[in-house]
């Protein structure tokens, strides 16, 4: 019983955290982009524009709900939610902080410690694609259809190298142990030798590229490409329905950063994040947030400095460069793991 109650409470807190995180991520991106572009950025609502996300939210909620005549209504209304839910749900397996033990009750800072966490993430992020494809399809508009078609091929292509790199990471969890693991909680808790860190960081750029493509971020933002497809799959959406798509994109950025922080940079680990102490969870969570913020900076930095890649070049890059590289990485990792085995 207590597990159910704590899980529900933890989920609600997490959703709240993510939605606030999304709101301030838009602020963070706007401020950062404006810095890159020698502008000032939002500075009217509240001190230093800090209330801008609130103003945006109020505006999005109170906008007139326009449902065009020519859309497939049920799917049209369902699609934004279908896009947002997976982005939120994927966070469930990410460990946020070390456990806190009070008496004989242990509070764990993750919602689920499933032993197939990585598979779960792959599965859930693929479901998110449906939201975009269905949204583009049901809008019954040439532009959104093109956007949806692009999404489909982009997501399918980029999941391949992403999965392969994940397999390589799973292999490394075998080193020095009886069995490996797929659980993010266990991966974070494992100790890695220094050379393994270096080897993992070698794969980070590749993984980061696949995450960019996975969350439709520039330079891979082809499904929406405001310059030729105007807004792509979301062209017929307005008000809060548009905001839901927006949320899905930004929350999947946060989720992606959290997964990358967990896999490549030790998650909540950091100085003073000692498990078993009362301050451990707080400092640990702080470290995770810091790592996420730094990774999000990368997303925005890329957006400010890279032109957009073309649709066919994107697929070529994936199939001709990224996939072979990731396979080579997997093979080399397998050899290293075999050599390191006792």
């Amino acid at each position: 019983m207590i597990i159910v109650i704590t899980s529900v409470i933890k989920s609600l807190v997490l959703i709240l955290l993510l939605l606030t995180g999304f709101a301030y991520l838009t602020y963070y991106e706007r401020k950062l982009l404006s810095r890159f572009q020698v502008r000032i950025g939002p500075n009217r609502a509240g001190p230093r524009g800090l209330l801008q996300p609130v103003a945006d939210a109020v505006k999005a909620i109170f906008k007139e709900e326009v449902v065009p005549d020519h859309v497939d209504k049920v799917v049209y209304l369902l699609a934004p939610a279908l896009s947002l839910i997976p982005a939120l749900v994927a966070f469930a397996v990410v460990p946020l902080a070390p456990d806190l033990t009070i008496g004989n009750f242990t509070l764990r800072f993750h919602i689920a410690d499933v032993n197939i966490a990585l598979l779960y993430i792959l599965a859930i992020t693929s479901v998110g694609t449906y939201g975009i494809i269905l949204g583009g399809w049901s809008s019954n508009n040439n532009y959104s259809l093109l956007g949806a078609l692009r999404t489909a091929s982009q997501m399918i292509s980029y999941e391949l190298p992403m999965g392969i790199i994940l397999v390589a990471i799973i292999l490394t969890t075998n080193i020095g142990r009886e069995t490996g693991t797929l659980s993010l909680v266990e991966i974070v808790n494992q100790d890695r030798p220094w050379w393994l860190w270096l080897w993992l960081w070698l794969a980070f750029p590749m993984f980061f590229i696949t995450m960019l493509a996975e969350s439709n971020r520039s330079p891979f933002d082809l499904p929406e490409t405001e310059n030729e497809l105007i807004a792509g799959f979301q062209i017929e959406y307005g008000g809060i329905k548009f905001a839901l798509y927006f949320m899905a994109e930004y929350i999947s950025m946060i989720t992606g950063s959290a997964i990358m922080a967990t896999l490549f940079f030790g998650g909540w680990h950091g100085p003073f994040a000692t498990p078993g102490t009362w301050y451990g969870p707080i400092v640990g969570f702080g470290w995770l947030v810091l790592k996420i913020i730094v990774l999000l900076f990368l997303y925005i930095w890329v957006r400010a400095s890279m032109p957009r890649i073309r649709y066919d070049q994107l697929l070529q890059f994936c199939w001709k460069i990224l996939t072979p590289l990731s396979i080579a990485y997997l093979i080399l990792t397998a050899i290293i793991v075999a050599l390191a085995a006792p």
Partner: protein
Amino acid sequence: MIDPIATLREAFPDAVLDSTVYRDTPIVTIKADALLEVGRFLRDEPGLSYNLLSDLTVVDRLKLNHGQDFGSRFHGIYQLRSIERNGDLLQLKVPLPGGDDPVAPSVTGIWPTATWHEREAYDLFGVRYEGHPDLRRILLPPDWQGHPLRKDMPLGGERVPFSVTWDDEEFAFLGKQIMKAEQRPEPVPGRMDPKHMIVNMGPQHPATHGVLRLIVELDGERVVGIEPDIGYLHSGFEKQGENVRYKDFVYYTDRMDYVSAMQNNLAYCLAVEKLLGIEAPPRAQGIRVIMAELQRIASHLVWLATHALDVGGTGLSLLMYAFREREEILDLFEMVCGARLTTSYMRIGGVDQDLPPAFAPRLRELLAILPERFDEYERMLSRSPIWRHRLIGIGKLSKEDAIAYGVTGPMLRGSGVKYDLRKAQPYCGYDQYDFEIPCYPEGDSYARYLVRMGEMRQSVRIIQQALDNLPEGDHIIDDPKIAPPKRQLLDQSMEALIHHFKLFTEGIRPPVGEAYHGIEASKGEMGIYLVSDGGPHPYRCRVRTPSFSNLQVIELMSKGHLFSDIVTIIGTIDIVLGDVDR
């Protein structure tokens, strides 16, 4: 130096009706039946090779009492240039048979650029071109009645001001929704295959740089055909020009290519000066060169910013970097004339005011930083593999096609034709300055990008030289019939006061004649053709804008490319819709 008039007279003794040289431009009048033969001869004869049809227009002689009309109300006017012979200009005049319903042979087979120009002449004058592949209205909507540039067309809307009262019927529906929003599907152009996806791009679309509408036929993501639909911003500048005094049209020219107002001012003023047979004083010419080149940099910066935006997405910082520098240039414009965008700084016979003392130091500061900034842009773009992939090989335009379609400016130089009116037909003393013409033979978007980047650097060089060698003296011609007398004279001299009064009430009256003058504006050849009947208004005012001819090749350039490349191609053509539609 070959004499085109003598050669023509020799080759076609029967066809040439009349010939003259006015203000150094040979003008040959030929019979309409012989137009195609003469045209082909002029294009193909090695010594002549008039391969560039700069402009094609029509003059309605209904109210013109000067000159010979050869029994025709409408005269077709063809401005031909020879690229091999330094842009040598020849004007063909063709009296069109058919009276009030004129007919002319179509020259699209000789100079394909005439396709749109003839459609325009059909639209605005009602000249039927026989043999034209697709004679439809181009600027005005298809259901428009009449042809607006005909002299018997009423100007319309001539109401006496302040005569409207609340009882008028036009106020009956004020504030009420009187029109039901009715959706009428636009017909798909007949040549497009309905099995393909037809995408309507524009007139409201972020990448079309204004109100350009493209009907795009797609097979998957591959472009099969494009049908541009223009005219959404048509404002009848030519008609306006024919109904205001010479000096008052300067302010209208700003609004054509609104990102290079100075260049438009310059083209118009030079054309009027050619008609008057005067030349601006040396200091005015120096100032004009500085302004025109600053405007070229500003215009190319807008192009760079929007091109990067189109190719790169809204996040790309280059947009703001380029606009930061353009802002500096606009500040300089504000300093000299008080306006930033619609400058109206040039005057017939010179410029409006002399440079303020703070101008030169500020300009020198800007010139010092500009080359570094251009390096910065190039570091951001030229070295980015994504940028190169998006541009190299996209929108190929061969040398022959470029000339045949009347493409000018950086587009032509990006196709390997080293042709620049500043060098070929120097005006404003451009021959005194040492500069190069950037030219790349590849003919793709990347070559055009390199050309424009190179041109900005050359413009910095020209401005530097012009600023260092700026002579002292008057900023406007000292002729009370053309330019207002100096302010202090008005208090002392009765004569000056009379001249001032006459000039501002009656305007300038150039002698009877006609003149075409083209300059190398930021986007290509910007030409003005004026016909004077001796009165204070131009009888015919024709504006040849570079974007109109340049946009024509969009279908040629985009066929077979992907949908995303259309955006790159629109960017690389560098259109301004005010310039296309006028």
